C-alpha cells in the first residue's frame, strides 16, 4: 500500500506508571461520554510475595494493517485512512457491533448516540500538526507516536536496544502498537 504516512505508537512499559492521565486527557479531548473510554490502563502483576514483577500499559486501538473491524464492517464506516490509521465514519455507522465482535483487542464501544467509537490517534490533532492528547499529556513520556514511513529515524531510535513486542500476533491483524520492555 503506498501511503504518505503510516502512524503507529511505541509505548514504553518501563516508564509508564499507570497514572491514567492519558485516559482523562483523551476523554476531555474527544468528548468521550461518562462510563466509556478510548484508552485504558492495564496492570499485570505476577509472582508471589515477595518475588513479584509488574507491567503497566496504556492500551488503545491498535490501528491494525489487516483490521478485522474494517473487513467485517457491513457499511464501510470502519475504514483505513490514508495516514495508516483506522477510522470510523460516524455517518455510515449503524451501531451493528460487528466490529466489536471482530476486534481481538476489545478497543471499541458503542457511543450512547448510536455509533461505534474508538481511539483515532486524535486524527483531528494530527491534521493540525499536533500529537494525540494522550501522548501530549503523558508525564512519563511513555507514549510516542511514530510515522513508520518517515525517514526521521524516530522509530528506530526508540526501539534501539529494547525488546519490542506486539499483542496477539497470531490473530494476524498486524497491530501497530509496539510495546517496549
Amino acid at each position, binding site marked *: 500500500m503506498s501511503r504518505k504516512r503510516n502512524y503507529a505508537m511505541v509505548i*514504553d512499559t*518501563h*516508564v509508564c*506508571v*499507570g*497514572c*491514567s*492521565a492519558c*485516559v*482523562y*486527557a483523551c*476523554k*476531555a*479531548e*474527544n*468528548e468521550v*461520554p*461518562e*462510563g*466509556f*473510554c478510548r484508552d*485504558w*490502563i*492495564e*496492570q*499485570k*502483576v*505476577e*509472582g*508471589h*510475595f*515477595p518475588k*513479584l*514483577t*509488574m*507491567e*503497566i500499559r496504556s*492500551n488503545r486501538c491498535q490501528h491494525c494493517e489487516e483490521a478485522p473491524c474494517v473487513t467485517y464492517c457491513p457499511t464501510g464506516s470502519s475504514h483505513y485512512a490514508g495516514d495508516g490509521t483506522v477510522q470510523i*465514519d*460516524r*455517518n455510515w455507522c449503524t451501531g451493528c457491533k460487528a466490529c466489536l465482535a471482530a476486534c481481538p483487542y*476489545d478497543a471499541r464501544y458503542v*457511543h450512547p*448516540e448510536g*455509533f461505534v467509537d474508538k481511539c483515532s490517534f486524535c486524527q*483531528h490533532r494530527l491534521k493540525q500538526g499536533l500529537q494525540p*492528547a494522550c501522548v*501530549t*499529556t*503523558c*508525564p*512519563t*513520556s*511513555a507514549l510516542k507516536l511514530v510515522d513508520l514511513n518517515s525517514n526521521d529515524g524516530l522509530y528506530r531510535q526508540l526501539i534501539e536496544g529494547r525488546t519490542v513486542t506486539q499483542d496477539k500476533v497470531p490473530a494476524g491483524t498486524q497491530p501497530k502498537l509496539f510495546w517496549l520492555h
Partner: protein
Amino acid sequence: MAQVNRRKFLKISSAFLASSAAGLGWPLITKTSKAQGIAEPDRIVSTTCEICFWRCGVDAYVRDEKVYKLAGHKDHPLSNGKLCPRGNGGQGLLYDPNRLKHPLIRETVNGKEQFRKASWDEATSLIAERFGKITKQYGTESVVMFSHGFGASFFKTLFSAYGIHTFSAPSYAQCRGPRSEAFKLTFGHAIGSPEGLDIANSRYLVLLGSHLGENMHNTAVQDFSSAISKGCEVVVVDPRFSVAAGKAKHWLPIKPGTDLALLRGWIHILLKEKRYDIEFIEQNAVGLEELWQGVKYATPEQTYAITGIPVEQIVQVARDLGRYGSSALVHPGRHVTWYGDDTQRERAIAILNALIGNYRMPGGIIRQEKFTPIKATLNQEKFKPYKADFPVTQNASHTFQSRYPFASQVPANEIVDQTISGSPYPVKSWFVYGTNLIQSLGNQPATLKALQQLDFVVAVDVLPAEITGYADVILPECTYLERYDDLDNRTYRTPYVAIRQPVVEPLYESKPGHEIARLLSEKMGMPDLFKDDIETYLNKQLKQMDSSLDELKKVGVLKVSEKNLYRQPGEALQFKTPSGKIELASSRLREAGFDAVPQYQPPPENPPGYFRLLYGRAPMHTFGRTANNRVLGELMPENELWVNQVAGRDMKLKHGEYVYLVNQDGVKSTTKIKIRLTERIRPDAVYMVHGFGHTDARLEFAYQRGVNSSDMITQLSTDPIMGATGMNNNFVTFTRS
C-alpha cells in the same frame, strides 16, 4: 493477582453510572454529535493548577464559556506541556454540582441548628463583629488561621494587619515538617517544595515509602521517568509493592517502622568500609567520629534482625551507594510523618546523602532559586500592622510558643491541644481556609472536642467538607479556574514566575479569596488595606520584574535558565549550621538534649490479630479534596483495603467484600471498605489510599464511599523534636457488622 483490565474499568464505570442515574448527573453539556470533526476552542487561557499543591502551568480550553479541557502549559517548568491525571480533571471541581454556592450562617431555629443562606455583606459583617468581640476580650492571639493552598496569602495579609499572627498549616506537622527540620539541622537549609533534588540525572535512586508514580507530582514523575530511561537503578524500601517498586532493581519489603534502623545500617557499612566521599566529608562536614560511635553497633546482621531485609541486600545497596557516590540519591520523601521518629529518620537520610557527597552534584541535592526576588518593601508591607495605633493590634499579649524546640512553624495539633486546654492562653476562634482539619489532622476525637470549645469558626472553601459542617459562617470561594491569586514566584531549579488568572467568571455567588479578604478588611475597620484592585496589585509586582500583567496573562509564565545547580570543582561551601559545616552529628540537637546522631527506637508492635495501617496516594486524587470530583472519580470512586492474600485468607476475608475496620482503641470506621486481597503487601500491614469515607452528605458523590484513614488514626506518635504527628502506629482488624 491484582489485575486492572478494561473489563474492570468498565465495571467500575457502570457502578458509577448507577449512581449518576440517582440524580448526580455530570453537568457539562457534551456536544458530541455525528459530526466527524472536533470543534475548536473559543479561547485558551494559561493559568496555574490547584488540584494539588505542586502548581503546574495549565492551558484551559474554553468553548461557549465552558472549560472542557485542561492541558499542561508547554513553557511552564513544572508541567513542560504535560499534566497529571488530577490536573486533567480540574473541570470536575469547577462544575461540581455540590459546590458551596453562597455564604451560609449557622442559626438555631426551635432548638435545631441549621445553615441559612446569607448575603456577603451579612456574613462578612458578622465575622468582623465576632472577631472584634473575641479579640477585645481574649486578645488577637485567641484567633488562629489554618490554611492549605496558595490562595491563603490574602487572608494572611488581612490577619497580620489586624494583629493576628498564628498561622498553622497541616502541611507542616502532618506532612513535610520533619524533612525540613532535619535538612536544616544537617545542611542548614530545607530541601524545598518542589524538592531541590536532581532526580532526572540520578544514576542510583533510593526511595523509602515515597511512591513516586502513585503520588503524581508532575515534574517529580517526569524526572523519575527520565532517570529510568537513562538507566538509573532504583531501590524501593516499602512494605508494599508500589508502582515504583515495580520499576526497581531491588524491592526491600521492610518491616514497617524500622526504616531508621536500615538507614543506620547503611551508614555503618559506608563508614566501616570507607566507601563514603572521604575528601568531601573532610572538607565540608563535622562529627564523623561521633557518627561512627553512634552507628558502631548497627551491623548488617543487627539490621537484618530488625528490618527483615536480608544481609546481602543491605550490604549490596550500601556498596552501590558508595560506588555511585555523588550521582546517587536517597530521596527524603514528602509525606514523612510516620512513626514519631521522623526528624531523626530524615536526619539519617540527610547524613547518607552527605556521606556519598551528592551535595550540589548532578543526580543529587541541587541549588534552587527564585525568578527574581519581589522587592523586600512589598513583602514587608504585606505583613505589617494596619496602622501603628490600630486598636486591636495593641491587644496581643502572647505569641504562640511551641512545646517542641525545633518547630519552625505552628504544629496544627498543638493548636488543637491548646484549644481544648485553654493553656497557656485561650484559643477561641478558628479561621479555616481550604483544609479539612477533620480528615487531615488524625486523632479526630480531639479535633471534634476542640471545635466544641470554640466560640466562633469560619470556613472558606470551594466544596463542603466535614470541617465546614462545624463552622458558624461558611464563605464560598470560587475555584482556581475562576480567580486571580498572588504570583507564583517560587524557589525552583528553573526560576520562574507564573500567573493564576480567571478562565471563566465565578459561578454562583462564589468569590475569589482576594475579594473575600477585601470585603473582610472593610468590615474589620481597615478600608485601605487592599486599596489596589487585584490587577493593579499584580501589575505593580510584575513591573518590578520588568514585565506586566498584560504580558503574563498572555504567556502564563516567565522563566530564566537554570544556573549554578551544581558546585564547581574546589568551590568552598558554606552551610548555615552552627559549625558552618554539614553536621553529621547535630550540635543543636545535642544542646537541646536529643541524640546528635539518630538512634533507633522500635515502634509499637502489632497487637495479635491486628494489622498495621498504612496509607498513601492514588494518581487521580489529592487527599480528600478530589473525592467528590465526578471526572476523577470515574476511574477511582472509592478506596480499597489492600490485604496480603495469605493473611487475608487466614482472616477469612473475601476479595471484593466490604467490611468495617476497628482499630486498637476500639474505634470502628463509620463506613465500609472493599477488601483487595493482593500479593503486593506484607502480611503484617494493610494499606489504603487516604481521602475517602466522607461523612458530609452534601458531598453527594463522595458520601460514604470507602473509609477515611484518619478515622482509624487515633494514636498520634508525636515527634519530640518538632511536634510532627506520626500516624503509622495504628492497627486495624475487620468486622462485618
